[in-house]
């Protein structure tokens, strides 16, 4: 489904990695490892098509994602180091807009439901800039509950979350994998997710 071929990534003078190859099939989880600065974020951004690779290519269903673009994006959810939510808008508005921007209309109660599941009850209508660090992250993660995308690319999704929220997220990812979704994630924390196929790649080794 997702295939990475001979990927090379260069930032400034540093070559982060080279000749990277892997494939990911539906129902598989890829855990990307590597020490600080190994190139995990760079790889994830390249896989999403935000950064152009120095050489090599990323294929989705056999086609280069650069030529697919919109079709590829339709099946993709990316969560980066930044939360991608507007501080002036409430959690509810953020989710409503993020879903309608991708062209779907999600019923209001479904969005509220997602926020409650992420433990944001009573905080739905506050401007997100007053929320705590962990609560902001939860708003960003609530998107995963309302999208129907197949490929999730999550860059350190567990940061700032407390133990309870980590459990919720783990369950969420496990369910996604069971439903034949694909997930790529990075984390420095020790997190065990209960899934069938768990692939691991260590970028520091390269």
């Amino acid at each position, binding site marked *: 489904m997702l295939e990475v071929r001979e990927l090379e990534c260069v930032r400034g003078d540093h070559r982060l990695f080279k000749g990277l190859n892997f494939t990911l099939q539906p129902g598989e989880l890829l855990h990307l490892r590597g020490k600080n600065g190994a190139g995990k974020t760079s790889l994830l951004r390249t896989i999403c098509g935000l950064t152009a690779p120095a050489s090599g290519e990323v294929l989705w269903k056999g086609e280069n994602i650069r030529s697919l673009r919109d079709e590829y994006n339709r099946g993709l959810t990316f969560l980066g180091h930044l939360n991608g939510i507007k501080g*002036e808008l409430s959690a509810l508005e953020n989710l409503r807009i993020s879903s309608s*921007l991708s062209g779907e209309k999600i019923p209001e109660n479904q969005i509220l439901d997602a926020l409650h599941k992420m433990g944001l009850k009573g905080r739905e209508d506050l401007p997100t800039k007053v929320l705590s660090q962990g609560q902001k992250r939860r708003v960003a993660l609530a998107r995963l509950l309302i999208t129907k995308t197949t490929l999730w690319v999550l860059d350190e999704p567990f940061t700032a979350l407390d133990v309870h929220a980590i459990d919720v997220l783990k369950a969420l990812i496990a369910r996604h994998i069971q439903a034949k979704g694909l997930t790529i994630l990075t984390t420095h924390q020790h997190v065990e997710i209960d899934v069938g196929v768990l692939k691991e790649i260590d970028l520091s080794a390269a």
Partner: protein
Amino acid sequence: MSESSLLLASRSMLVRDLTLAMRRKADVLTTLFFFLIVVSLFPLGVGPQMEMLRGIAPGVIWVAALLASMLSLGRLFSDDYQDGTLEQILLEPHPLSVLVLSKVLAHWLLSGLPLVIFSPLLAMQLGLDGEAIVLLLITLMLGTPALSLIGAVGAALTLGLRGGGVLISLLVLPLYIPILIFGAGAVESQNAGLGAQAHLSILGAFLMLTLVFAPISTATALRISMD
């Protein structure tokens, strides 16, 4: 289905930007205040001779409109860039140029349109007559959207750069010049008895041209800046 989802997306982009601006009214009002102040200052700086003021009125109003519209350009994309929502916008399953067009439309509604609405008041203060005021209004109506469209390219190119606000003006102002010349020139040409038809057609043509090319250039610039 895809058609209507694109429509939904671009509409919600517009609504989003308008809501955000309404949350922080500062942005809209400073632009307007700035415009009003720059124009009202001129009688103070130049002296109260009415004929002189009438002569420079269209030029002054146009320059003020151009600068005021530019003032607000700096934040067109930079807020979205800093909180990571721009990344998300780039990953939407829709042509980026269409979403950009929505954003520019929002920008114009917030910073261009209020200026257009208030310009007759200022023109009156500077002694323009009824006919000239209507003509000025039409030129601003045609010209200011083009300003926003061109400005968007500059804003996208300077994204994430320090001193972006000033750099934008450096990139964009030279490109604004034709609009300024034909916008301000229309009233003058009318007064000289030459008619303003040609000026208006050219402004219209310019708007069309920017409407076609600016969103695509802006989208390209955004992808480059986010790389």
